[in-house]
């Protein structure tokens, strides 16, 4: 269905090619997973399938890419719209119309399908993706998972043979991600579509994959069975890391498989010691925090105390009020209730003094950056924080992420950019650090880096509060977890007891070795004799 023959690609001003001599063939009806670190060329590979690369991005493509018998060198992306459905990284930005039904019809209108057939296909597509009840809703009002399903439906309506998805679940909560992935699996199994999907978080998808393409980032691509690829790839989801540490030949792709293998091998780790809940006089204490937007109560009466040096994660659905809570605690969002950070209410302070107490790295960290180079941003941050010149650059170096000084911050990778914003925010020397959804777009290595950084900051006595959708990240990092729903904290306890008891949020290791309360591969390794 899709064949790459000795494909090479180089961006116009790049020194190194993204690909060299890449060849592989995907048969019809395959679900192929494209894995690799940030910047390894996953999106470029996906774009090459429907000719967006190079016609839209520039650069030179050599070799030959054929999709359903059509050579992409002779067809523009628009001419492939009837064979390849492409859903980009942020579906909201690709929406052309404003209601669900119109969005689904849009692609067919462009193909010139007659209105009667179009009407029928819209209905079928709505049913296929299970979104019939949303048909007249404005796209902007939908939740993230619904928007993602509408985006998929919108390309499906044109009845393509290939579906290309670029990180479809990166911004979704675990339940919504599960919904979207289930819908994709249905398309592969029932409709017979060929699906190519790029992901950072492999935990949930890898069991459904027929094959995997690993991009190590050096211009090569390795195509093979998932179990083989995962055994060698540097991309290590928890199950692959487990297989590596206990010496299994074959990487189990699902929790069930891993559980069986572990049982057969008699692998039973000892329960790790009870984690210590951080204690001490709280540096941040909040009582009855309530945030309202008009009629909507985003946060309804949250009580929270954070001891110094503690790491706490906040989990919950999209729209549960996690971000609002963080913004309110920083004092940047009007709210009722009492907030005290080191005895002072950040809402009563000006912006400059507030961030010396408590600082927030927002979800879209780029909003904070506006200067042309990294060094200019660092100098500006020193000036803003009244810190010694060089403080921010020093912090950045201390974070252990190499960031070139003369680069435009917008050209950095997600991980580098996050490190830069973190250094800028830490220059103020806050007592409390709030991170809103920091793991979006980070690969496993960058996430491990982030964990290391946060642990170090906590060891220096900074209280960290992190909102995230990434259960494995939370499991590996935090001692305490809050679960939010509908603006309220519905559970507050040690990360271990909270995650293990929840069906949606249990990390994979907990499921594999249940009832032994292990959360991460490290726990398992430490618990083995």
């Amino acid at each position, binding site marked *: 269905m899709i064949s790459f023959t000795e494909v090479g690609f180089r961006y116009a001003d790049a020194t190194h090619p993204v690909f060299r001599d890449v060849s592989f063939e995907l048969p019809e009806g395959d679900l192929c997973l494209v894995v690799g670190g940030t910047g390894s060329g996953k999106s470029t590979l996906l774009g090459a399938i429907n000719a967006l690369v190079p016609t839209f991005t520039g650069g030179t493509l050599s070799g030959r890419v054929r999709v359903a018998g059509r050579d992409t060198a002779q067809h523009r992306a628009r001419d492939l719209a*009837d064979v390849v459905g492409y859903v980009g990284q942020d579906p909201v930005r690709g929406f052309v119309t404003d209601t669900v039904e119109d969005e689904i019809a849009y692609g*067919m209108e462009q193909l010139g399908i007659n209105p009667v057939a179009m*009407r029928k296909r819209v209905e079928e597509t709505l049913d296929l993706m299970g979104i019939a009840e949303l048909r007249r809703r404005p796209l902007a009002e939908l939740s993230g998972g619904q928007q993602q399903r509408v985006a998929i439906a*919108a390309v499906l309506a044109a009845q393509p043979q290939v579906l290309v998805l670029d990180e479809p679940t990166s911004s979704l909560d675990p339940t919504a991600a599960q919904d979207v992935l289930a819908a994709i699996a249905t398309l592969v199994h029932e409709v017979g579509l060929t699906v190519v999907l790029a992901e950072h978080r492999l935990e949930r998808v890898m069991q459904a994959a027929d094959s995997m393409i690993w991009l190590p980032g050096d211009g090569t691509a390795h195509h093979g069975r998932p179990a083989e690829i995962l055994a060698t790839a540097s991309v290590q989801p928890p199950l692959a890391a487990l297989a590596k540490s206990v010496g299994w030949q074959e990487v189990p792709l699902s929790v069930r498989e891993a559980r069986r293998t572990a049982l057969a091998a008699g692998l039973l780790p000892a329960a790790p010691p009870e984690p210590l809940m951080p204690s001490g006089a709280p540096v941040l204490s909040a009582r009855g925090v309530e945030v309202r937007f008009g009629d909507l109560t985003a946060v309804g009466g949250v009580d929270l105390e954070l001891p110094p040096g503690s790491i706490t994660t906040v989990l919950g659905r999209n729209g549960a009020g996690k971000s609002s809570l963080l913004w309110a605690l920083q004092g940047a969002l009007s709210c009722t209730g009492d907030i005290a950070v080191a005895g002072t209410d950040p809402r009563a302070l000006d912006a400059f003094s507030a961030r010396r107490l408590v600082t927030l790295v927002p979800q*879209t960290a780029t909003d904070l950056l506006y200067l042309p180079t990294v060094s200019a941003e660092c100098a500006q941050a020193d000036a803003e924080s009244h810190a010694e010149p060089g403080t921010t650059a020093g912090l950045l170096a201390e974070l252990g992420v190499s960031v070139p000084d003369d680069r435009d911050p917008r050209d950095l990778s997600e991980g580098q950019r996050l490190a830069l914003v973190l250094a*800028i925010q830490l220059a103020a020397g806050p007592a409390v650090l709030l991170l809103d959804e920091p793991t979006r777009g980070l690969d496993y290595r960058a996430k491990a880096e982030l964990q290391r950084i946060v642990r170090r900051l906590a060891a220096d006595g900074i209280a960290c509060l992190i909102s995230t959708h990434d259960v494995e990240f939370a499991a590996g990092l935090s001692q305490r977890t809050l679960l939010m729903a509908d603006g309220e904290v519905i559970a507050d306890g040690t990360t271990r007891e909270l995650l293990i008891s929840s069906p949606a949020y249990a990390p994979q290791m907990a499921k594999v070795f249940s009832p032994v309360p292990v959360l991460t591969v490290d726990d398992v390794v430490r618990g083995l004799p």
Partner: protein
Amino acid sequence: MVVAEGTASLITLHPWAWWCWAIGIGLALLGTTNPLLLILAATAMIAVVLLRRTAAAWARSVRAYLLLGLIVIGVRIVFQIVIGGASGETVLFVLPEIPLPAWAAGIRLGGPVTAEALMFTLYDALRLAAMLLCVGAANSLANPRQALRSVPAALYEASVAVVIALSLAPQLIESLLRVRRARRLRGDSRAGLRALGAVAIPVVADAIDRSLALASGMESRGFGRTRELPVRGSLILLLGSAMVATGGVFLLLSTRWWELALGLLGIGGIGAAWGLRLAGRRLSVTTYRPHPWTLRASLVALCGIGAAVVVWLGAATDPEAFAPTTDPLIWPQLTWPMLAVIALVLAPLPLTRQRPPAVVHSARNDTRVRSLRQFGNPAVEVEAGAP
């Protein structure tokens, strides 16, 4: 009653029929300053809007236009009283006059206020307000977005650009608010021009990212796919027709050769229509749930055009009635042609039908209705209950 946007095609008229009707009335009102006709026509239009609008959000806009009209009238009257020159003899009251320096000759602050000048201003303001109301009525009766969807194929690209611009504006505001909020996090409390770079650069960068994402989304979904080479000569035909029509308008407005002018206008109009048709041939984009152009739609559109024709013919033959003089002040008359205009404004009422409200017989065991209710989407409820 609740009618969702998507079902509109089943019960409502083609959006351009309503726009044609409203624009026709607007042109008609442009040709008269008779306050009786203006007020009656405006009232009739409001009646049509209230009886024929749907329950969608954009259908509420007529109230805003009505308010805008009243503000226009108020402002004009106040300005006339304060700085308007006095003409006529019926002095109502005298404001203290403020002497102005010599270079401000021709402007007078205060002084006597006459009934003649006041009525003249009132008539003129009424006309402007009524014309604003026409736009409001069209907006309430036909969703402008829906109207843009059914433009001639030749104008398709232009309509796409307008629709995208319409949806980009709220996105830009959203990203502006987000960035401004984020400024506080960096402890940046600069305001005004000095903060411009810090706010503008992330917003502009975000807007460019969005546009690129949208463009690649449209490209990968086939936008611009079904275009063939333009039909030879269609551009020349369009340009030529537009020039001929412009010449016609010029002759009509500034000379006495109205026969020649009408002829030129007609030729220009037909030429333009033919050119659009030719140019549209190269595009084979189809429309989802197209609004059919029905006989009713033609009739409603004709009502608007008819109103314009009646007023302009009437104004030519009977100028005293259609543009009553305010000096000396006389009571405006209502003549038969004016009643015909009102009838034409009201004509869409018998020509269109109001959809009967859906009667929802609640079924005790209908789990579907009950589960849908949880979404709190009334449109779905009605659909579930409708036969």
